[in-house]
């Protein structure tokens, strides 16, 4: 360090000599440019799947070919955009569709026809299979419901 100090003392400050402060500022700015040039591609690279999923969220309608032939009392799991969803053909011939993501901590729920309920195995949350209402256990909200339209050769599920 002492070598550097001696060197500096020999310098004569003129208008064209950058001050130490200006030099440090320039070096810091250059360093920030490098950090940014490295961080931006890395961030975009790591965020790629999230961006692709965001495109899928734009999905407003899913057509399930042949799902109209599903027997009463059965359920079909499918993906609505990027998240799991379920189509239930009730024993009373009703058709409903819900998001299959538990509103408690995000596990995938399952339809249990013999118990007449939608159950989440993670923490024992229970939902009503007709309305998606949270019946018991920790879930704070009902399951998100979708609109269902049964066609001649398919079932069309769309955002409510």
């Amino acid at each position: 360090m002492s070598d550097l100090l001696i060197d500096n003392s020999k310098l004569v400050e003129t208008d064209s000599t950058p001050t130490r402060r200006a030099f440090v500022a320039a070096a810091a700015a250059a360093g920030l440019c490098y950090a940014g040039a490295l961080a931006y591609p890395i961030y975009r690279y790591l965020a790629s799947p999230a961006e692709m999923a965001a495109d899928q969220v734009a999905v407003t309608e899913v057509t399930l070919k042949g799902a109209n032939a599903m027997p009463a009392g059965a359920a079909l799991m499918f993906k609505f955009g990027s998240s799991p969803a379920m189509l239930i053909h009730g024993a009373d011939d009703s058709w409903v569709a819900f998001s299959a993501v538990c509103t408690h901590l995000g596990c995938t729920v399952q339809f249990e026809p013999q118990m007449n309920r939608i159950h989440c195995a993670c923490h024992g949350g229970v939902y009503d299979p007709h309305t998606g209402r949270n019946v018991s256990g920790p879930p704070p909200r009902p399951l998100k419901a979708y609109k269902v339209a049964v066609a001649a050769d398919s079932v069309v599920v769309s955002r409510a």
Partner: protein
Amino acid sequence: MAGSIYNWVDERVGLTEAIAFARHKRVPAHAQSFWYYWGGISLFLFLVQIFTGILLLVYYRPGAEAFESVRQITYVMHFGWLIRSAHSWSANLFIFSVIVHMFSVYFMKAYRRPREIGWLTGIALLFLGALFGFSGYLLPMDELSYFATKVGLQIPASLPLLGPFTATILRGGPDVSEFTVQRFFALHVVILPLLFLPLLGLHLWLVQKHGNALPPSELAKPEPTRKSIPFFPNFFQKDLAMWLISLNVLALLASVFPWDLGKQADALSPAPAGIHPEWYFMAPFHMLKILGNWLPGASGEVVGILLFTVGLILWVFIPLYDAQNKIGHRGRIAHYFGIFAVTALILTTALGYWGIR
């Protein structure tokens, strides 16, 4: 505030001692000082390899899906092409700077007592670096990497006795397949790093312990007339400047000449025209070819490998028979051997490229 944090840490880990040690350390300054930077440049490029390698690991899938995942990295993920390109370019620059480092150590006679283990660990690191290159080359599983690995594994396969067995085990079967990719992947990201990192630690510690070696021309000068500069901050700043230059060169190469991804490997399609080994394998390949052509019969290749091995052993164990710190007869022979090695490497590499022109 900053002072009290410093004191807290200093009391527990001894920062002041470390700084005092770094201040005390000096680096010789003379006409050949430029060559002292190449170890540091190699280290920087290795760090880049770890960093970009981890990023590639985020999306790479070994096994049957290998090609598809590299295609995804290259064409689907944002800036994936840049990260892959940086990894490939930095791998090549790493091998290059390690070779420069090795020859500068050789000609400065820096392998002599007490630095023999520094030389030997360095050679081992270069060997592991070549294995990193060979195993990494297969991972994209495109046409070039497929055939390069096929041909490369013929070398152990042509050795007598255990050769074919070793090649089959490395390959994971009679032919290069998804099993080969899977085990090369394990080699590339687990086994080789596990071997490389402790060796690198030992290598770097020995550099700290013994300091930079003086070339014979400097040793010939009386001690008071030799010049040196403090490591910290003077040499350290220059080291950092070299790292910055390396980063700039790498960024330029990786973005202006992005690394290619060929067609998916297919055992049924013929080898592409002009296929050749990576440049750092060109010289040994071509030497074997020349020796194989010179010597008659099918044994030519085996004799070629044996001759080549003898040369390699002479090279590796140079510190054991050129140990004297005087400019003597043996020292001169070692010097000529080094010049011969450089000439042979450059010549056979050039001939190899001339042949596939």
